[in-house]
């Protein structure tokens, strides 16, 4: 590859005691593309993104940002690099409102160290509008009262608000109905069109084939291979997920392992 990808993992391993959650995993994400990350339950998808976010320190291997090795010690470090993660079920705080959630951990303060609620509210409105999220009536409603689709929209908006370069979404549509899944997928596509690198974890191959450009398959903590959506089929991906067959992707010389 000529240009180095925004984000790349090389030979990353991570164990929890006896469990090898990740073994020698290679992975990358490029600007303006949606990279899907698929695999069975327990394949290591969530562990992979938590390693990227610095929540789980990796045992081996390296993480490269724009080609340079970086060490990410926690969500703050990741955020500084422009990497934002929307965690499965753990994205938002229920008893805070939309604005408070958008700025949680990164609140704006005035000169007296007081929370600058007015500015935070204004920017929240702008961000939601910029992403064409029209379903949130008022940014001052509590997140507890939002539908699943609205919650994901807020979580995604929160992730992209910080001039982020890489946005990682862990099963954003898992709990959503058809219309709400539609909303979120549209949003994912829009992010890529705005030039972000998007990593999408999903179990729904139909969705993935609709919005993703490439697919990385994990199986039992190892990367099976990388596939261009335009050149593969759902069957091939299913085989890779279940049987770990790397298949024809190798022939175009792009697949790692």
């Amino acid at each position, binding site marked *: 590859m000529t240009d180095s990808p925004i984000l790349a993992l090389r030979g990353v391993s991570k164990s929890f005691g006896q469990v090898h959650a990740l073994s020698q995993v290679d992975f990358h994400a490029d600007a303006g593309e949606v990279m899907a990350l698929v695999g069975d339950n327990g394949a290591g998808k969530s562990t992979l993104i938590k390693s990227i*976010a610095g*929540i789980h320190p990796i045992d081996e291997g390296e993480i490269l940002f724009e080609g340079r090795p970086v060490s990410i010690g*926690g*969500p*703050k470090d990741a*955020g500084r690099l422009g990497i934002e*993660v929307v*965690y499965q079920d*753990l*994205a*938002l*705080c*229920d*008893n*805070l409102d939309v604005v*408070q959630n958008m700025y*949680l*951990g*990164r*609140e704006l*303060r005035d000169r007296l*160290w*007081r*929370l600058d*609620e*007015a500015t935070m*509210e204004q920017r929240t409105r702008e961000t939601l509008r910029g992403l064409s999220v029209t379903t949130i009536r008022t940014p*001052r409603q509590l997140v507890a009262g939002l539908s699943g689709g609205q919650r994901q929209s807020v979580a995604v908006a929160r992730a992209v608000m910080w001039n982020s370069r890489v946005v990682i979404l862990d099963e954003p549509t898992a709990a959503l109905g058809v219309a709400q899944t539609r909303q979120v997928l549209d949003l994912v596509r829009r992010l890529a069109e705005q030039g972000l690198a998007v990593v999408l974890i999903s179990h729904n191959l139909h969705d993935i084939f609709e919005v993703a450009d490439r697919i990385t398959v994990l199986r039992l903590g190892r990367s099976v291979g990388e596939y261009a959506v335009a050149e593969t089929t759902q069957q091939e991906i299913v085989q890779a997920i279940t049987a770990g067959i790397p298949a024809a992707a190798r022939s175009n010389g792009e697949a790692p392992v």
Partner: protein
Amino acid sequence: MTTFALRRLGQNRPILLAYGGALALFAVTSAFSPGFASANHIRILLIQASFVALVALGQSFVILGGGIDLSVPWTLNGSAILMTLFADGQNRPLVWVIPLLVALGGLIGLVNGLGITALGVSPIIMTLGMNVILSGGLLVYTNGSPTAAAPAFVETLATGRVGPVPYNTLIWLALASLATVVLTWTAFGRHLYALGTNRMVAQFSGIAVSRVTVVTYVISGMTAAFAGILLTGYVGQAYLGMGDPYLFASVAAVAIGGASILGGSGHYLGTIAGALILTVLAGLLPILNLNTASLQVIYGVVILATVALATLPGRLAVTR
């Protein structure tokens, strides 16, 4: 914005209910007991309420963050006893004694907080253990014998007044304002609410969850120690066991004030109403021919009831 935060607080139904309850209870008790509503007696009520309210200030921070501090009784007691020992009835040493003891309270909180965050000890075990250690240590240190009387200055702080308002109440008001500012208008306050609601979300949002947790226990240790000093001034001396009522009283004040005992919701303004309710209730008991032991029953029932209420929605959701 300022107005936004106030508006939201003004819409907090549990807190409004707690103040309504305090007023109603006060009205009923006054009706049965002439003199209960006299200016003099109101001053006494305010002073009595301040001790619970000060201990409950730190307890509010701890509980909001999803913890609990069971070491307040002997933190308070230790500070009271050491104050009388160090000052030995003199005013002058108080210049260093009071700051030292408040700092010591903070140190106790720091150890609690570090045990909970760094060693992963559960808050109940950690602070209960701390309470036992402090009580044992003080028994050994004092040989169980009573100590000197409270210095005059501390007595003045606790019982004197400027115009119609007790100094004690002014001090409480100042600390209550500070607590309100911190909870309502600072990022620390915001992080505390997030932490008490969902620790993982807070952590994944980049909040320094351990640091915030530790700070709440430090605050609790400091307010308990300070309350011990004022209480000694009010009682006139320090004695072993004087902090014991303040464990359940502080937790009950927080709970009655509309906070979730599991963390994440509530406000010190509610806790103030809770402390007032408990104090008026203590005044009502003799009128009903009940002794203070019944107050303990009420604390227990209140705490259990609020815990049950706080966890009810979750359990309903699970069984549904």
